[in-house]
């Protein structure tokens, strides 16, 4: 996986276009990466779930949460700084997101040093559909 980091915006885009030209593909993109700002990539097209999660995170961490619509799902950006991003993701993984983050995906992502928490449909997780009394 090719990853090049830079502080300069123009440099990033020039690098992207150079790589696109060199390898004759449009598969190179520019993104934003931060080791302090939590970003959650949700590949589930469930608006209610995303707003619910955003609301919970907003209340729990006392901050605003930005929601972006992507092709596959949504991006959540917590608008605050966090000292230890990995610890923060681990807490989320163990609490709010326990039914959505795949164990192996989480471990691999963190070991690769990713600054984004990825959420996709977890097939094995049981989902509450009703309570009968």
């Amino acid at each position, binding site marked *: 996986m090719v990853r090049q980091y830079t*502080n300069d915006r123009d440099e990033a885009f020039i690098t992207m276009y150079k790589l696109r030209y060199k390898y004759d593909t449009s598969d190179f993109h520019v993104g934003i990466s931060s080791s302090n700002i939590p970003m959650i990539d949700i590949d589930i097209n469930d608006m209610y779930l995303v707003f619910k999660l955003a609301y919970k995170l907003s209340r729990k961490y006392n901050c605003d949460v*930005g929601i972006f619509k992507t092709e596959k799902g949504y991006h959540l950006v917590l608008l605050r700084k966090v000292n230890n991003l990995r610890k923060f993701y681990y807490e989320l993984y163990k609490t709010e997101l326990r039914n959505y983050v795949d164990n192996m995906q989480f471990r691999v992502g963190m070991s690769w040093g990713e600054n984004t928490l990825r959420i996709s449909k977890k097939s094995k997780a049981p989902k509450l559909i009703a309570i009968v009394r």
Partner: protein
Amino acid sequence: MTKRRKYSPTIDFEPEEDEKKIIDLSLDKWLSEALETKEKQYDGAIVVDEITDLERLLSYYGLNDYKYVVYYSPSIKLMELLKWLVW
């Protein structure tokens, strides 16, 4: 007498009021102030995907501790895949 255990799958979340509040706070509405002051910074910049919106958002909240990353993400479209399979 045993006490019945109370179960609520959506703890402290009231979608009727709170969800509306969040939806009302659309990006355009509360970023409009930021755009007025920050618009000049982005004159002539390349607008790609959500980068610009995210930059504006982070700038608005005074969060400037980030880097740009160029990454490779191959995308094989279904039609291209079918084309390959047919050939």
